[in-house]
């Protein structure tokens, strides 16, 4: 509100200043129509604003002046001297009041009625014209803000962008030519200043999203009145700032979504009552910043979107095949709302529901690098979420190349980058089209070289796959020759002839000054022939049978180090890691592998480990992990044939046919049972042994022995019961422990009653530990 008042003050003051000259001119020539009009406009504006802000005195004054002037304008009255004086006096008073509002002071309680009366026809002797005073009050506190034209700001912004590019070029020149340290230092400083300036100028272009939101209550009011509904708007987060250009870009999509919410979402009052809801529907709009994105939620508590209806509609208009329709997840069903030519409205209304709409919303949002998502519960309401980037001009991007030409891909669209010959990736050709299987998920694969019609020097298997998720949700893999760098690029729109390809989102300059084209991931997919909408559905087809036959066990088919074809239940495989051979060592009785911070027992090391890299499955039984070395992953598959069990429990529990060839089924249980040893016992059924925390000998020398026997060691601070307490003195409370071992530091026992154990009597200690632990656990 304070901001709005400040705006009001600034606007009124501006008008007052502009009016200064007009007033004098009008006074000289009361018949001058254009002067009259501008003065009328001023009091009219002030009146309108006052009503909004609840300044009753200002309103009364401006209203009276407006009435009088309106009469003059309508020719009902002649602008004679007394009227001019009275109007001028009113304007002066308005100026004084505005100054008081600005200063936050209470305006001296005077009676304005004399001024208002003076406006009446035939009134005499109003205050003498004091036009000069207006200018004075205007100057008494100079405004702290100035108004700038948007074009000027845009020009400054683009100049700063150019400056950044010029700086980049200079940086490159400096790198190429040997320069003095002092030059480098000065350049660094210049760089920092430019960066700061860019930040500042970016901020000047920022506008509070409130500007977008202020119009909403009115719009919703009008709409709901027209529709005979009662709708309340709740707006939150108006202070979130967004690039001015961005605000303009989301204005239409936002308006459309809200119209939809009011028109289709919110039910008529009677229907709402029947459904047990409040008569008044609620549309809440909230904005918040998350990283370099702005999230705008539009939520209504209306009837929600019926996914099944959407599907039926899509079938009707032939957007969807019946087979595919059955497999859509609820989310995908809802996503149909963004398809062109679908509208759930049973009848076309004047407000929305012409079947053009949500698809336009989506394409508009996507064009600015945003995403629109929908979530709905029938009967409870719908939530639409717009995610848009903060600004359009600086985009973090990944540079890739094909042949010797560089391109950039917006980082926001990149899901991951994998090597085409990586172990979790297989490339297949289906009717000449590429399909990549990445960790068991099939995604369409297109080669950038094919899309662009360029020659690639690199064989298919050695390329990199950039997995992209264009705004909208479906992924595809793009094969590129090389991946270069992450960069923050100043992106400029490309010429129409370039944009016409549909492939590019803009151009930018690389550090070396050469132009780089920035891809539009959705455009690439389209030109590359990836059917994004269909894709999500067909991906489901791929794993559909697996979920349908719940019994089928997913297994990972791999080749062991000894070359045998084996399968491991997918559920136990946490992930696949690649470690240097040096990370695998014998330690504490068996082969162990170091994976990051953890040292895990290693199974499967039944062949040559090789010299450089070893691939290891990280297996997890929910509580413990072990590693399993292997040579390569063959495929992801399911066990759908009979398993012939092995005669003896061993690493391999049986054989079965997978993909037409026999494979050994690795028994994960056996692996864990045999490779974990003592640490396999989970802490719950491990006996607990309490050791004095402060005793270094106990902690450093004794503790490993105790733990090796299978105890879980706790300190003094452990409150619960311990199965065993080891102490060096008798003062320790015995009551809480099932057993106590007392250690003495002298080899000889103190007497016959002394059941303490000499602390280096290893055999005696072990017997005592084992017998103590015997009651529980194993």
């Amino acid at each position, binding site marked *: 509100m304070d901001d709005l008042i400040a705006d009001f003050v600034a606007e009124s003051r501006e008008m007052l200043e502009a009016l200064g000259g007009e007033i004098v001119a009008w006074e000289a020539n009361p018949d001058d129509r254009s002067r009259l009009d501008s003065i009328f406009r001023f009091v009219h504006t002030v009146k309108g604003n006052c009503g909004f802000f609840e300044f009753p005195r200002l309103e009364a004054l401006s209203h009276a002046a407006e009435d009088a002037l309106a009469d003059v304008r309508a020719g009902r009255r002649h602008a004679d001297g007394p009227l001019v004086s009275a109007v001028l006096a009113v304007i002066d008073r308005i100026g004084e009041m505005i100054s008081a509002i600005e200063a936050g002071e209470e305006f001296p309680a005077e009676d304005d009625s004399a001024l208002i009366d003076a406006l009446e026809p035939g009134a005499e002797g109003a205050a003498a014209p004091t036009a000069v005073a207006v200018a004075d009050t205007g100057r008494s506190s100079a405004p702290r803000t100035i108004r700038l034209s948007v074009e000027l700001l845009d020009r400054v912004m683009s100049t700063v962008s150019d400056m950044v590019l010029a700086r980049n070029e200079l940086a490159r020149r400096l790198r190429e030519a040997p320069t003095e340290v002092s030059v480098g230092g000065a350049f660094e400083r210049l760089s920092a200043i430019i960066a700061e300036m860019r930040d500042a100028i970016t901020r000047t272009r920022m506008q509070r999203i409130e500007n977008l939101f202020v119009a909403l209550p009115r719009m919703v009011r009008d709409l709901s009145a027209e529709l005979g509904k009662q709708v309340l708007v709740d707006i939150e987060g108006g202070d979130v700032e967004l690039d001015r250009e961005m605000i303009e870009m989301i204005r239409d999509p936002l308006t459309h979504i809200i119209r939809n919410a009011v028109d289709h979402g919110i039910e008529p009052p009677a229907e709402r009552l029947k459904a047990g809801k409040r008569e008044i529907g609620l549309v809440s709009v909230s904005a918040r910043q998350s990283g370099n994105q702005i999230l705008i939620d539009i939520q209504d508590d209306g009837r929600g979107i019926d996914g099944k209806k959407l599907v039926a509609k899509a079938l009707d208009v032939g957007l969807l095949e019946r087979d595919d329709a059955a497999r859509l997840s609820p989310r995908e069903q809802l996503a149909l709302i963004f398809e062109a030519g679908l509208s759930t409205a049973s009848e076309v209304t004047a407000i929305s529901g012409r079947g053009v709409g949500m698809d336009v919303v989506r394409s508009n949002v996507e064009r600015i690098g945003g995403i629109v998502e929908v979530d709905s519960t029938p009967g409870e309401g719908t939530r639409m979420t717009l995610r848009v980037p903060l600004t359009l001009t600086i985009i973090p991007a990944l540079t890739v190349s094909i042949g010797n030409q560089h391109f950039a891909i917006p980082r926001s669209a990149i899901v991951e980058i994998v090597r085409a010959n990586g172990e979790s990736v297989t490339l297949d050709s289906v009717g000449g089209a590429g399909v990549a299987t990445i960790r068991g998920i099939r995604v369409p694969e297109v080669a950038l070289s094919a899309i662009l019609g360029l020659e690639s020097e690199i064989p298919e298997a050695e390329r990199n796959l950039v997995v992209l998720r264009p705004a909208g949700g479906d992924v595809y893999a793009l094969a590129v020759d090389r991946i270069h760098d992450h960069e923050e690029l100043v992106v*400029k729109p*490309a010429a129409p*002839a*370039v944009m016409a*390809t549909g492939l590019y989102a803009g151009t930018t300059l690389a550090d070396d000054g050469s132009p780089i084209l920035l891809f539009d991931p959705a455009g690439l997919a389209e030109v590359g022939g990836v059917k994004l909408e269909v894709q999500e559905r067909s991906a489901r087809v791929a794993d559909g049978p697996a979920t349908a036959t719940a019994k089928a066990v997913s297994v990972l088919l791999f080749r062991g180090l000894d070359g045998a074809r084996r399968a491991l239940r997918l559920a136990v495989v946490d992930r696949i890691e690649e470690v240097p051979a040096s990370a695998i060592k014998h330690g504490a009785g068996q082969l162990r592998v170091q994976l990051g911070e953890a040292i895990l027992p290693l199974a499967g090391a039944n062949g040559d480990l090789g010299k450089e890299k070893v691939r290891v499955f990280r297996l997890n039984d929910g509580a413990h992990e072990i590693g399993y070395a292997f040579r390569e992953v063959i495929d992801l598959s399911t066990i759908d044939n009979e398993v012939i069990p092995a005669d003896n429990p061993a690493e391999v529990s049986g054989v079965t046919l997978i993909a037409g060839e026999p494979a050994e089924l690795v028994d994960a249980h056996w692996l864990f049972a045999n490779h974990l040893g003592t640490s396999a016992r989970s802490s719950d059924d491990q006996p607990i042994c309490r050791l004095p925390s402060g005793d270094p000998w106990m902690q450093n020398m004794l503790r490993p022995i105790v733990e090796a026997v299978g105890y879980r060691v706790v300190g003094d601070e452990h409150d619960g019961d311990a199965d065993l307490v080891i102490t060096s003195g008798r003062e320790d409370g015995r009551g809480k422990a099932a057993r106590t071992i007392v250690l003495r530091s002298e080899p000889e026992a103190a007497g016959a009653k002394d059941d303490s154990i000499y602390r280096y009597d290893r055999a005696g200690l072990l017997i005592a530990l084992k017998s103590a632990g015997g009651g529980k656990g194993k």
Partner: protein
Amino acid sequence: MNELLLIVTIAGQRVALPAAAVESVVELDTLIPVPRAAPHVAGLSALRSRVLTVIDCMRSLELGATDCSDGIREAAVVELDGHHYALIVDVVEDVVEPLSEPTPVRVAMGPGWERVSKGMVETESGPLLLVDVAPLISGAEARAA
């Protein structure tokens, strides 16, 4: 008409460009191709930290392609709707003052030339075709559309 004209040669023809539209004349060296763009878009180039979209005038006029393989090409830089373009020409000659208003050309030219023609202007060195930059940039496809 007292607007200055820039005389250039495209596909061996001397033509006039409105000099006011031309920001500068440059020599292009590196050219970054734009895959899948219309054929008359020769590529992108950079001029003082600005990206130029390079237009091959010969292709735009459907008179064959300019040979860009030998590296340096002369080009006139123009701005249209906020985008900067470099128009590849054979030779940039001179800036002259027109001696007449453009008048319609009353003879059939090639379809490409027809499309970009703004009429014929008299100059000291004889009549020249006054070329409209916009259709030159939009190329042959735009006309078809």
